């Protein structure tokens, strides 16, 4: 039995302890906003926050987050999250949308640490998130727009 907090609620799952957090969240807790892209921390589609810090859930064994607090796209909130969502919508950033949960989770984490990011800050924080639709131009602009409104 693995126990952790997911978006503020207590979750208890009877799954193998080596199960990646990604599948615990999706198949176990049925929160589906966090996506499977590669399974090896190459694309960032599975990015969640563990105690507020971004983490690739596809390579995080669920046993290692026992008792900790996990936030996904469904639960992320606060001024940075609001600003990021509004900026994303303002530019109609998503295309297929599949990577965007991970992009937003990475962007929110960046803005919490670096409220006024430079282009290099954005590159460093976001280079782990692949967007196959190549919405990168708008992601960069949206992060800057969000940073101006916080």
């Amino acid at each position, binding site marked *: 039995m693995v126990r952790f907090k997911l978006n503020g609620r207590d979750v208890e799952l009877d799954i193998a302890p080596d199960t990646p957090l990604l599948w615990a969240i999706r198949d176990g807790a049925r*929160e589906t*906003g966090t996506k*499977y892209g590669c399974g*090896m921390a190459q*694309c960032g589609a599975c990015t969640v926050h563990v105690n507020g810090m971004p983490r690739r859930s596809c390579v995080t064994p669920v046993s290692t987050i026992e008792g900790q607090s996990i936030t996904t796209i469904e639960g992320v909130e606060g001024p940075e999250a609001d600003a990021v969502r509004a900026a994303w919508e303002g530019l*109609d950033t998503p295309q*297929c949308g599949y990577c965007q949960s991970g992009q937003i989770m990475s962007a929110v984490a960046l803005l919490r640490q670096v409220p006024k990011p430079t282009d290099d800050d954005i590159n460093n924080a976001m280079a782990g998130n692949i967007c196959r639709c190549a919405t990168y131009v708008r992601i960069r602009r949206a992060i800057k727009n969000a940073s101006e409104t916080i």
Partner: protein
Amino acid sequence: MTKLHPHTDFKTNRRDFLAGTAGLVVGASLPLGHRAIAQTEAATTGLNAFVKVAADNTVTVLVKHIEFGQGPLTGLATLVADEMDASWDQIRAETAPADVSTYANAAFGVQGTGGSTAIFSSWEPMRKAGAQAKAMLVAAAAADWGVPAAEISVSNGQISHAGSGKRSGFGAFAEAASGLTPPDAPKMKTAEERTLIGTDLPKLDTAAKTTGAATYGQDVFREGMLVAVVAHAPLFGATVESFDASKALQVKGVRAVKQVPSGVAVYADNTYAAFKGRDALKVAWSDATAERRSTAQIMSEYVSLVEAGPGEAATDQGDAPGGLETATTKVDAIYRFPFLAHTPMEALNGVAEYTDDGAEVWMGSQLQTLDQAVLAQTLGFENPMSVKLNTMFAGGSFGRLATPTSHFAAEIASVLKAQDEKNPVKLVWSREDDVRGGYYRPLTVHKVSAGLDDDGNIVGWDQTIASPSLVKGSSFEALVMPNGGLDPSVYEGAQDPCYGIENFRVTAKMPDSKVPVLWWRSVGHTHTGYVLETMIDELLQKAGKDAVEGRLAMMKDDRARDAAVLRRVAEMADWGRAPAPGHAFGVAVHKSFNSYVAQIAEVSLNGNVPVVHKVWCAVDCGVAVNPNVIAAQMEGGIGFGLGAILFDQITLDDGGKVREANWDSYRMLRIHEMPEVDVAIVESNEAPTGVGEPGTPPIGPAIANAVRQLTGETPRDLPIVKPYTA
């Protein structure tokens, strides 16, 4: 537990959406979808096959195309909303059911998406559906108010009659309107009367895609559902000889192991258990009929093919060999293009379950009619409509979901059917399944000889292409090649250049491929556009002519739209100015899918790796239905083509096994490699044409032409940066 709405349902009031959804998402449901259904199920009335009006005034547009980011939900809804004189706030979009009798793509004759045809093929029918709906609502209002229909006006979702002061939303007349006969020839707007077409309306699916609420095939859960993964052959064409499931069945959560036509399926309680079970499975494969050649061998065979002489003619004007004999300067070139995987963010997946009288399937279906037929056939149902096929949001496609063989639909049905029990099943492909699974842009070789006279005019052009057909042997063969001959996807973009070249021949050979091949964003243009535009650029340089002026001087009289986008992009980039030290500008223009795109790339080199700093792009796609979506498709098309031309190749090793497996070895463009992009849309009154694909072809040659300025060599052996030797 979770009620599943098979379609996509949206509300456009973003503020409400966000306020209503924080933290409320459960399972695979779309919370706002539920609310929208609750609002609309009570009294929703269909006015025709594409438009439903609810008592609360919301208008739901049924869109027959799959949405994977290219924007048909928003685009097609815009066409309806404009003719209805609806307010954008009241518009929703929903994916239409799979039903070829009502929702065929006029461009194909079957229901499906591709070839950048969605807006183009729906331009008349969807506007007509909107105009019809409006006329019916007006007629119903006229009857109720006792006034002439001609005196009623509609604006911003409000029906009004000035004389009596009467006023109403659409909802009050939906039911009455539905009893009327839809007019055959409703009055349609002139270009000047349009209010929504041509504006940057917010996309209908954006809000759901910033909260995690948008539901993809991967997000569907059914009661009692198992997750299945299939062990596929490591070589293309290999088959299962035998398998040992004993270790796999010991993995916690694994329920069953069954052979299916495409391999061996492992069924488990969850995805991770299924993957682990598959890792523990032992399969012996028979390689007797498999592809054992390496890509290096295949490439060298294709080079021999093009060097052996011309193939079947795609076009043959004047006397190409004779013209070349008179040339005083010649360029002879061989171009090598690798296999390319699409690797959409969402790898293939789908959910299937038996119903009382058939089956229901949820998947990112791009060719619904074909998928539905194959699902039904595999499951043993005579009527394709026995399978209710729900088209889900898909996490990208770029061509991957449109398989003429419907191999993935067949695998879903096979996996459902192979069980001893009748559990609902979700079939999941891992990223490795995707990268190694074939259906690649074909490996392709071009040989070109082109020559100039002393004045720098092109006096001969002779080109031979070796590339496998994408449709031979599939259900598309009769549609695409009704009289045999060449598959146009092999040469499209090469045979009809915008330049007038008197002695001009393009021929092609179509070797059989055991590696399954498929269209990849912009199809043949991915290689033909590259060859054409790098050759032209090099010839112009040899002739001492400017790359933009020289192109314009050669353009045929009937190619004014190519010329216009080229002129426009040259203005945007301030063409002719000196680049920064170490930088160079490259230009390319290419028409594909009846849209015209020109691009200029500013490039420098970091070692031997091109760095693309900025791209200017001008596009003419006829009437710009949603300029913001068009710009986004250009940006995306540029990024997609750029990553591939720089980094991507799928290679087979000496035994025929794919070397690349995931995004560590098949490298994707990342944010720090994405240039700034400026897009201009050339104003046009022509009927709209597609934008999903046409942004991709020019970027490769634009970069290559800049690289040639910096290195003296045109990259002709792609990708430009190679992680391995093929």
